[in-house]
């Protein structure tokens, strides 16, 4: 009946990994005032494995739920594995998002990539999954479904 399915609602109402951590190893932010969404991801990384993740999001239900599953899903993954996750994976994990809200999950993908990009830059890592990634790219290109 509602706009979102139960799983999305659960992640939205009781988001996992919400908030900030002390001394994160990497921070990525992504968003657009045009969309009205902004997301920040903080990561704790040990031996190229994401051991902890937190998010702070200003955004709609879909943005918050995506933040929640994205941080869940990247925990325990290697950086390369995390980079392979796309918004499609988050949506699948959430059991679907309404059409006009798909772009909000892109936010999570981009914020994760931004954080890892920052970490890679800082630590001189060359990661396959970052090929062609540019954190300053506008996400508005994902907007066509509206």
């Amino acid at each position, binding site marked *: 009946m509602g706009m979102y399915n139960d799983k999305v609602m659960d992640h939205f109402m009781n988001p996992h990994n919400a*908030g900030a951590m002390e001394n994160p190893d990497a921070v990525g932010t992504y*968003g657009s005032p045009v969309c*009205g969404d902004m997301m920040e991801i903080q990561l704790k990384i040990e031996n190229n494995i994401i051991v902890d993740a937190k998010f702070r999001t*200003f*955004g709609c239900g879909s943005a918050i739920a995506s933040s929640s599953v994205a941080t869940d899903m990247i925990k325990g993954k290697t950086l390369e594995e995390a980079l392979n996750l796309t918004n499609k994976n988050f949506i699948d994990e959430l059991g679907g998002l309404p059409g006009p809200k798909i772009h909000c999950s892109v936010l999570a993908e981009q914020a994760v990539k931004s954080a890892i990009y920052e970490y890679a830059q800082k630590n001189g890592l060359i990661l396959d999954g970052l090929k062609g990634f540019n954190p300053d790219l506008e996400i508005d290109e994902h907007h066509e479904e509206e």
Partner: protein
Amino acid sequence: MRQVYLDYSATTPVKKEVLEEMLPYFTEKFGNPSSLYGIGLSAKSDLNKAREKIAKLIGAEEREIYFTSSGTEADNWAVIGAARAKKAKGNHIITSAIEHHALIHTCQYLEKEGYDVTYLKVDSKGCISLEELKNSITDKTILISIMFANNEIGTIQPIKEIAEIAKSHGIWFHTDAVQALGNIPINVKELGIDMMSMSAHKIYGPKGVGALYIKKGVVIPSFMNGGAQENKRRAGTENMTGIIGFGKAAELAGANLEKHIKQVSELRNYFVKEITSKLEDVDINGDMEHRLPGNINLTFNYAEGEALLLYMDSRGISASTGSACSSASFTPSHVLSSLGIPLEKIYSSIRFTVGDFTTKEDIDYAVEEIVKIVEKLRGFSAFSKERTWCNNGNV
């Protein structure tokens, strides 16, 4: 769980007395008002009694009220009708930037046909400038359409002054009073209004029925072609039950007006006082003086609007972002933008409207829950007093 409805501007429940008045017209009194036999003629006569009640609420004559299917239709009819009627005189329409979409999209439709439309700016309180209005008038101006009160921020415009300016230039003046009706006193004759849009479902009547007041002497072509209903000016079998309900709702609105204004403005003020004393960084949008009694529009900085709404909904509290009608479109409110409010604040803004069924207990419950919700959302927001859109990362 407690249900607290704070969105009376979006729509109202139908009052018990209104529904009771409507019921016989579904079954026994179901005649078509155009029919010549008993149940048709009595339907017609009851329809005109409803018309009279609406006329009375706004100080008009019975025959100046034409029923429509909604406020939206009334707006479309008035503006397109005036444009067609006055084609020979000119092609310029003046309206405001904060009209309802029913008005703005109708003007945009006419622009495609070659009409010129001036959208008057508003100040930070949501009020148009009479100076600017005067300066916008040309000899091609055929219609001034300024809403009586805004649906998002509740700002009431200086209608009498606008009407005088229009009259002194021989220009028709239409006002969208969908939100004003039943919430503030309106007398079309004293105010000098030529056409006025109304809608039943904002005053505890049913959805799907509205009306256009058209002053005697103002002639615009039909918007709906067909049968001879509504004195040949609006075709289509009349929404009998809707019209009967609208009439009763208008009667009640007139009888209760003073009490209604006192009660909802007190509750609204109490709500604002409580929220702003318990939460920091809450902005009030619009003007507290020239404002609809039940309306308040608040910016909960750093907490996002849709998330706020959904959290509130999960606690049984109903309110809205932007205008209800465009909620489904996820576009930031053109009204708040027109006040000069920056996008990030628009995304954190909620409209609350108090109505006749709201109690102090409702407000207490809502305040308590809203405070918790805002604090929770702010707790994991990407923004805060220290981190705003402007100083934040790669935006």
